[in-house]
């Protein structure tokens, strides 16, 4: 008891003003307020996230036939998912997309964030340009995908321009409904998720560090690689988490942009859903979730993002 009072006193003594102390003390004893404040968030996430994920796991052990799902506890869905060569090829393809899109968006996002943070000097111009880069994120993804069709199609803008210039003699077929189109659309949709966190981190870099590096005789490239990139790491990590999870779980982009010619895990799950094979889809979903979580913990192990929060 005395110990508790002692600890309390020490903690309280750390506070600067005596008025605050009294309030803090009251707050500590009366701690139901934050519970009420955070309650709705907790309730919504429990009902619409935690519970559904539990249902996913439970149903993944169920049995099913062509008309219904049958409660059971068996590993058939998992052995079927993990034992099928199609699954492995699909995962490999999804990893390939993820890796390519991650690399492209990381380089592009870093460059754009760098220009915004360090090359644009006027504060107003900086904010306006940042806003210009952010606005498309707030418009419909599906419309943004569709809008590539008149650009990339057989008779699209790009092909007719290249034909007119005499650079090609037949329209390029690989532009639309191909892996190229998928990666392009991903980059178009998700580059922003890299730009924003990296820009945020860069804005917090003390400019004097850059001046010090330059004064110390480091060139631009050396300053970039030894000062800017290491200090932007947490932003890059947050952007990577966004891009990796979104590409790993996507099915709309692959379906629209590959014209049904490429596979992804998300697409596999969604086609299992449309053929009402819910338990199989759930097993697939659980595997996907496990892999995504592992990828994220790998990223978090490399980079500590806590100071960003």
């Amino acid at each position: 008891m005395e110990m508790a009072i002692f600890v309390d006193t020490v903690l309280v003594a750390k506070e600067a003003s005596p008025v605050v102390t009294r309030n803090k003390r009251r707050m500590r004893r009366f701690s139901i307020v934050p519970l009420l404040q955070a309650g709705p968030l907790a309730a919504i996430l429990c009902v619409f996230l935690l519970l559904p994920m539990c249902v996913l796991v439970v149903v993944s052990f169920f049995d099913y036939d062509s008309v219904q799902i049958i409660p059971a506890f068996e590993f058939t869905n998992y052995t079927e998912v993990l034992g099928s060569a199609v699954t492995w090829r699909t995962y490999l393809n999804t990893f390939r997309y993820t890796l390519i899109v991650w690399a492209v968006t990381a380089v592009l996002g870093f460059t754009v964030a760098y220009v915004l943070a360090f090359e644009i000097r006027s504060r107003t111009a900086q904010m306006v340009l940042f806003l210009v880069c952010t606005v498309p994120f707030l418009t419909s993804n599906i419309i943004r995908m569709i809008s590539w069709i008149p650009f990339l199609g057989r008779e699209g803008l790009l092909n007719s321009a290249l034909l007119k210039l005499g650079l090609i003699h037949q329209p390029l077929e690989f532009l639309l409904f191909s892996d190229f189109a998928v990666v392009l659309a991903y980059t178009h949709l998700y580059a922003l998720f890299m730009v924003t966190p990296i820009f945020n981190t860069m804005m917090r870099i003390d400019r004097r560090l850059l001046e010090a590096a330059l004064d110390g005789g480091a060139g631009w490239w050396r300053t970039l690689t030894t000062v800017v990139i290491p200090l932007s790491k947490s932003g890059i990590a947050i952007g990577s988490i966004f891009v990796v999870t979104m590409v790993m779980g996507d099915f709309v982009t692959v379906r629209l942009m590959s014209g049904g010619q490429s596979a992804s895990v998300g697409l596999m799950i969604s086609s299992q859903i449309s053929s009402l094979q819910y338990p199989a889809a759930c097993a697939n979903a659980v595997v996907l979730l496990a892999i995504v979580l592992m990828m994220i913990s790998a990223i978090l192990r490399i980079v500590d993002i806590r100071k960003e929060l």
Partner: protein
Amino acid sequence: MGARLRRFMLLGVLGLFILFLYGPTLTILVLSFQGPDGGLTFPMNGFSVHWFARLFQAQAVGDFGGSLIRSFSLATMVMVSTVVVSLAAGMAFRRRFWGSGPLFTLTVASLIIPSILVSLGVGLLFNELGLDPDWYSSAFGAQLTWTLPFGLLIMFAVFNRFNRAWEEAARDQGATPWQSFWHVVLPIIAPSVIGIALFGFTLSYDEFARTLLTAGSDNTLPLEIFGMTTSVTTPVLYALGTLTTVFSFVVILCSLVIVRLLAARRAI
């Protein structure tokens, strides 16, 4: 000399990036004004508002009017809930409380769990409970799992920069916690609250994956548009794209104006 060239190139990258972001959208904006005989690609075959008019004829596209109303109502519901819930939770997270660690983990998990899994999970949950999924119940909840984490993260950013002295001053003057929140805290963070509202509205209005398996029998607008991509092969698709994009821009512009007005009022 090298420095100048590098600056030029870097600014060029930014310019190209912005072109890359907006170019395709501008293309369909132009193409949506195709003449009645025009196709999905250039050249323009005349210039008309034919396809916009088609949009409002019931038969041309599925249930455009109904899905628009549903999407708008849903987005408004999501916006209001996101603002209230993440504002309250943001206040709570200013200090540790019982369960704050797990709740934070759950919120972050909500952000990184692929949308289709949430969609599938919520759909199955309703199914198991014997409830009919609907846009205002299951889809509403599924979308909140996407907008709430964004709202909370914005609140974190706000309160990290928040000067507690204002609030303490209010309390010293005898303000109740509610008064200090309403008259001091809220006016200071108002622009960010508008930001959360904007995010909540637009993320919901454009959400596809989380609504797909949770919307029940009535489509929201993105679901309707997705259905059209496989069945409609006329510029009416572009007309719809242009309209929704213009609508999004109007919403964004309105919130920017409100933020500016709030900032101006504070400056006085």
